[in-house]
């Protein structure tokens, strides 16, 4: 119990003091995870949409695989990306290991299945409801898909937020490919891991609290944007 009280104090102290180290770490966390979610959306959304509206042999196997990959262990992803980016690995010449780019790559791999699987489910359900009506509008398959994406935008936004939550909270992959290098690749979760290993449990918990607040803020922001969009649409 003492640790919890102390952690609130530590969190407050860090935030109130606008600790420059903390700002740097928070900023890198957001930069890496938001970039990863952005790239994962560019890959995962078309993939999910494709799976939602097409029929081909082996489709169910692909869907089950993509859905199962939502449970990819971050450590395994970190290890695979490490082996690829290592100087001894196939992509070694790119010199990306222990950079934020490496962390973005690892988190993208973790988030793509989440966005693809949730988008697939959303769009497939929506397509079942909308298909006939959109046919009657005389739309081609691409125009129908665009309309489905727009009609499902709020559910799809939740899929992106789920991906962001996964990315910003994981430590296993980024600590391996980023190396937790101070001022270069240290993010919220690896900083928490480091403080835990130093036995500074209250500080670690305080950082965890701040991470939670950031996640809350991002979700609240999206919620407010949605509400504003709805108001302006029906004003």
């Amino acid at each position, binding site marked *: 119990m003492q640790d919890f009280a102390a952690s609130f104090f530590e969190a407050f102290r860090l935030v109130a003091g606008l600790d420059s180290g903390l700002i740097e770490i928070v900023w890198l966390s957001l930069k890496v995870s938001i970039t990863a979610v952005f790239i994962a959306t560019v890959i995962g959304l078309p993939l999910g949409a494709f799976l939602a509206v097409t029929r081909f042999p082996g489709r169910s196997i692909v869907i089950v695989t993509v859905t199962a990959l939502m449970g990819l262990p971050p450590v395994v992803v970190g290890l695979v990306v490490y082996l690829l980016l290592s100087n001894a690995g196939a992509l070694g010449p790119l010199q990306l290991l222990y950079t934020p780019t490496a962390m973005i790559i690892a988190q993208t791999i973790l988030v793509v299945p989440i966005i693809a699987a949730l988008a697939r489910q959303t769009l497939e359900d929506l397509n079942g409801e909308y298909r006939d009506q959109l046919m009657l509008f005389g*739309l081609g398959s691409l125009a129908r898909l665009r309309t489905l994406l727009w009609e499902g935008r709020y559910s799809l936004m939740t899929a992106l937020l789920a991906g962001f939550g996964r990315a910003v909270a994981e430590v296993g992959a980024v600590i391996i490919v980023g190396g937790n290098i101070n001022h270069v690749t240290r993010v919220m979760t690896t900083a928490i891991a480091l403080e835990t290993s130093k036995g500074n449990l209250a500080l670690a918990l305080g950082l965890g609290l701040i991470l939670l607040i950031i996640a809350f803020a991002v979700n609240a922001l999206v919620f407010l944007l949605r509400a504003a969009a709805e108001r*302006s649409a029906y004003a």
Partner: protein
Amino acid sequence: MHEPVRFGQQTATKPILPVTAERLFVRRKGRVLLDVEALTIGGRGTTVLVGPNGAGKSLLLNVMAGLRAPDSGRVLWNAEPPNRQRYGRFGMVLQRPVLLRRSVRANVEYALRAVGTSAGQARAEADRALEGAGLLALANASARVLSGGEMQRLALTRALATGPDLLFLDEPTSSLDPASMQTIEAMVKSASEDGMRIVLIAHDLAQARRLGDEIIFMHRGKIVEHAPTDRFFGAPASPEAKDFIAGKILI
């Protein structure tokens, strides 16, 4: 907020009437759902499809609309198979209309834009159509929060807005209160008088009498009778039609 969809410019196509069906056959799990030898929808006026539940009325409309492919047989719109370029001249209100998650006006605008109307013109035409349906006051409301009657009216307005040659209506007044039903019937009548060819499914024989110039009676996937309204109700030829009109349950 505007949806980032660009509609392709649709070229004007030749008329889609007459719509004909030849030897349509649909079977599911060993049960015959549709077995129609021949049907032609042409000329003018309103045709009402009646028959017991499961007779194949909705399926027939969906197949003729090109939304479902029959197991065998074919549907022709003016001697050519239905294709999406020609939906600009065709309208349909589904049994459960799908309203887009946007405003009432945007729903109508969307249909107009889909057939190639310019954005500015679509808005003006949408407002005119909404005014005709008594929905203009609700133009900015979300389409998903309307009452059942308002939703049906909006779906019908949206289908009428593009001025189709042929309009299919799948039970447009089911589970509506009498006032809403009257409004819808008035809109259908007015469209018919303006020369639009209409085929509608009615669950209510009184409505069939009020709106229909001719009646098609279906039973077990087949067209059992196809006759002018007066003759169908006055002198039904088949025993099934007699029983149906008399309110007996048909299986």
